[in-house]
């Protein structure tokens, strides 16, 4: 892949803390550090995968980039322009460029709106089309995602899960965005339908020259979709690498454990190699130092004291570990 020097999306030091409130006065008694200092760059036409287990903050990163959450601190640049400082009209104009597809098509579509209204809503809100023009645009969008435009006056409940996710994708494409944030777009679907949606997304990316931020917990799906992958653990990125390199030779012990805990579909390979002990610690009270040290098989004394920064490991790879796994594997 030829990498453009200018990133489409740049995230710097993104933090999002949620307050924990308790008692009658609802005083703030603590903070859930859902995202705690994330740096990312997404390049034009690439798919950047974001993986991690539940509660690692991957969805929060997506929602902050779409500015659906107000971030606690940090900066987000889109095509060099600072998204964080925008408000009102200029924010709305910028939003056309970044759209999001949610996990559950059941709850992200209004059950009382026809498909025509749902898919056409972004166009109406931005005043881009109305009347016949809007109807034609909606028909185009539905055709693009493989649905019959004649069904546009139907309601979401008349469609299957896979079809609903196609509707969600059509709605996200209505404003011709440059970046699509895909938040677990196939997790709620059956495998036979999942492959249809994944292929559709790959086709659309080529046809419409889109960039994707693909958020998922399914490593197989992420590998299929992404050119580069960022692995998150407890609100931080622990490793970022081109997807082939990440799968062939993980540098962070967490990535290694994550990869080896995927059950292989080959019954001859019955080696659930490095399995992790214990659960993910609470993001309200993350461990000191390296957040992974409590579950890491290679942890040493310094891991509990000093927090490793995400460092350049060469060849477009970054890893946040004091003792990254060596190449001698």
């Amino acid at each position: 892949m030829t990498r453009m020097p200018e990133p489409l999306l740049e995230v710097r030091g993104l933090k999002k803390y949620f307050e924990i409130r308790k008692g009658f006065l609802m005083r703030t008694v603590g903070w859930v550090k859902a995202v705690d200092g994330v740096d990312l760059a997404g390049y034009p036409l690439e798919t950047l995968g974001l993986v991690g287990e539940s509660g690692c903050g991957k969805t929060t990163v997506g929602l902050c980039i779409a500015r659906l959450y107000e971030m606690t601190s940090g900066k987000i640049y889109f095509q060099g322009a600072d998204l964080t400082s925008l408000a009102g009209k200029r924010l709305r104009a910028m939003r056309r460029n970044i759209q999001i597809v949610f996990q559950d098509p059941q709850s992200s579509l209004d059950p009382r709106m026809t498909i025509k209204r749902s898919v056409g809503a972004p166009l109406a809100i931005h005043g881009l089309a109305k009347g016949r023009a809007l109807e034609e645009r909606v028909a185009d969008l539905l055709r693009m995602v493989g649905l019959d435009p004649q069904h546009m006056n139907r309601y979401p409940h008349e469609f299957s899960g896979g079809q609903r996710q196609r509707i969600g994708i059509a709605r996200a494409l209505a404003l011709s965005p440059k970046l699509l944030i895909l938040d677990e777009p196939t997790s709620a679907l059956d495998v036979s339908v999942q492959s249809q949606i994944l292929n559709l997304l790959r086709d659309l990316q080529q046809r419409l020259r889109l960039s994707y931020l693909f958020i998922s917990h399914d490593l197989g799906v992420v590998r299929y979709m992404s050119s580069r992958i960022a692995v998150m653990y407890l609100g931080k990125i622990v490793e970022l690498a081109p997807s082939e390199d990440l799968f062939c030779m993980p540098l962070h012990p967490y990535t290694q454990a994550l990869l080896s805990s995927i059950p292989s579909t080959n019954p001859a390979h019955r080696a659930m190699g490095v399995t992790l002990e214990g659960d993910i610690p609470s993001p309200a009270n993350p461990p000191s130092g390296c957040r992974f040290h409590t579950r890491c098989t290679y942890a040493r004394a310094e891991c509990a004291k000093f927090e490793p920064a995400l460092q350049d490991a060469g060849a477009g790879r970054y890893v946040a570990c004091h003792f990254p796994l060596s190449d001698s594997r």
Partner: protein
Amino acid sequence: MGEKLLLQVENLHTYFYTLQGVIKAIDGVNLCVREGEILGLVGESGCGKSVTALSILGLVPSPPGRVEGGRILFEGEDLLAKTPAEMRSIRGSRIAMIFQEPMSSLNPVFRIGDQMIEVIKLHKKVSTGSARIQALEMLHEVRMPDPEAVLAKYPFQLSGGMLQRVMIAMALSCEPSLLLADEPTTALDVTVQAQILNLMKDLIRKRNAAVLLITHALGVVAQTCDAVSVMYAGTAVESGSVESIFRSPAHPYTRGLMECIPDPSRKSGKLKIIPGTVPDPVNPPPGCRFHPRCYKATATCSQIRPDPVRVGPDHVVCCHYPEEG
């Protein structure tokens, strides 16, 4: 692994009578589980795998559901002929069950210890004190950190993985010979899933119990099971040993399922797809239920329901044109 059959499901039919019509959730399913064997039951949502488990346990909600035909032989006895009271004493002691959501299968207002002790006392006629000791032993066995403290906790104080350990401990506390596990790791993260699956395998082997593992994840089956049955739209389309089915899937649906999952161990080109969606259970297609989505369907497939054909030792498929190789 013994050769003796522990559970045999023959030509099971379970229907649900709804206002929309009769839902044939299970329409002629055959299964058998040998002693000490882990059988995987795979299929997409709505294919009837959970209803199969509920039918075995006699827990089909009725109305609207009813087991309309077939036989379920467990240790030689027909479970469908049992009275509700007899079934109650079998459930939990000889056949145990683990569900997908551990949080919703435990009572939120009772402590873990009370719930574990209740199960043991119900089936074993022991004192509360010795039931408590047994509960502690079981928690030890499922490698629960600090079991003593866990007994005094409420379900909401434990994580999903820990709760699933409690469920396994409870299910195995009465030494069942068959464990039904319905998507036991679906709600868990992959790293925790690996822990739970390894733990389940260990404990099962130690007790020589059999498991019917219901899942939609083929990877989980490949890693844990000895044999598999693949279900589609209320019917079992293929069954056999894990090695044989993963090496040479004979049903086009099984093959399609395997090819449409992105394999994390290698980068693939375009994913294969199975066109269309799962059929409406009220009006399933005639003949082979898979024919509207099958690439090799012919007129025969849309008219005649395929009978089981043996394609290998221990490998049976319901297809007019089974795949080769």
